[in-house]
């Protein structure tokens, strides 16, 4: 069973300029002014010098994960993860963080009314945190491949509490299991992680078909990204190409 603390290279999770600008509501076909581009460049430089990315990846049995998933019983009854993890072949819980310094940098900019710089750095850090979670998912996939547990018909997807009908209060059980204080992450009374730029969740690996689900649940109506569509498409993308 994999149970590792990982140092994540900062260079591997540096967001591209366009993804930072997207976080600011500027799409690829829109042209920001020079000042905005400079702010984004400065945000990347600040990220590079201040983030200390680290993560914990720990494989878990379906029975043990069922306890974490249930939390205090407030999940949406139709939450897709409830079905997916039970059909999954391999599961690992994870947590990643960018460290404390970047959050302090963002707060200082807000406190000094450098609102644009603060907001840009916040967008850059959020994107980097997502990339850190992607990094750990890719790492887990490579571990599974090496041990012969991931083949052409296998898919992999990660889920986080607070999204897709999985209630935030699963964080308590997740923290009990992962002990993320080992990499400096704590949970406050509102179930928010400190440092803020941290992501936790579960990675499920299994037959590709288990990951198909519609975005027509009642809670999907309130979701603004519907990013599950892209993530599901990515799983089946390779099949289309071959």
């Amino acid at each position, binding site marked *: 069973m994999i149970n590792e603390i990982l140092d994540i290279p900062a260079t591997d999770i540096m967001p591209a300029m366009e993804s930072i600008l997207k976080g600011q509501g500027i799409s690829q076909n*829109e042209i920001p002014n020079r000042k905005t581009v400079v702010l984004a460049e400065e945000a990347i430089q600040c990220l590079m010098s201040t983030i200390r990315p680290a993560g914990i990846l720990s494989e878990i049995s379906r029975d043990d994960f069922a306890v974490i998933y249930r939390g205090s019983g407030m999940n949406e009854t139709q939450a897709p993860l409830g079905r997916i993890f039970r059909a999954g072949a391999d599961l690992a819980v994870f947590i990643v963080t960018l460290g404390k310094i970047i959050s302090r940098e963002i707060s200082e900019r807000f406190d000094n009314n450098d609102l644009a710089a603060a*907001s840009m750095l916040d967008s850059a850090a959020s994107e980097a945190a997502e990339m850190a979670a992607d990094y750990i998912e890719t790492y887990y996939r490579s571990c599974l491949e090496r041990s012969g547990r991931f083949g052409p018909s296998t898919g992999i997807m990660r889920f986080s509490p607070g999204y897709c009908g999985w209630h935030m209060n699963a964080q308590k059980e997740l923290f009990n299991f992962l002990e993320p204080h080992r990499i400096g992450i704590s949970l406050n009374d509102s179930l928010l992680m400190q440092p803020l730029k941290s992501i936790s969740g579960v990675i499920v690996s299994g037959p590709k078909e288990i990951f198909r689900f519609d975005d027509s649940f009642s809670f999907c109506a309130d979701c603004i990204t519907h990013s599950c569509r892209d993530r599901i498409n990515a799983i089946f993308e390779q099949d289309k190409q071959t």
Partner: protein
Amino acid sequence: MDILAEFSENLHNGEAERVGILTGQALANGLEPRKILDDALIAGMTVIGDRFKAHEIFLPDVLMAAKAMYVGMDILKPYLIKEGISTIGKVVIGTVQGDLHDIGKNLVAIFLRGAGFEVIDLGNDVPPEKFIDTALKENAQILGMSALLTTTMPMMKKVIELAGARNVRDKFKIIVGGASLSREYAQAIGADAYCFDGMNAVDCVKRYILSK
């Protein structure tokens, strides 16, 4: 170029230092603080808000303009207090407990300040009691709540229920907003209004406060 037009141009360009200098010059030239506030800063930010709403400018442009506006307002503040000029009204605002998404809430605060309201921003992850206690303590006319996550939206209902349980629901109007929200949801939880963006929030707050 007259000084008000110069204010407008420098706000648009996010030239905070220049807006500060212009504010000092305008005061030195005998322009009334209220006129500088209304005709230069508030008028300038209204244009910024309209251009943002029309997708002519982006979030960073608004935030750079807001910084410039705050520089001007900080200079004017002692003069406005000395002359007994009060703000249009007071708004307590925050992102609900368990939620730390605050870009939308920050924009609402910026546009409200830019429209001449006093805004007490409680930040994010705000417990229900703090919303109510602050609104009462500050004698605010409006309490504004924001949430992005579908899992934190129910906290808004908790705040409204708490206001009812403490018999203070009629002390202030409650407005809600956030990307996941809808007018129907706002009605269902008993909010007075749903605001879909920053400029809409300004219109809504103006409607409530000016109609009193």
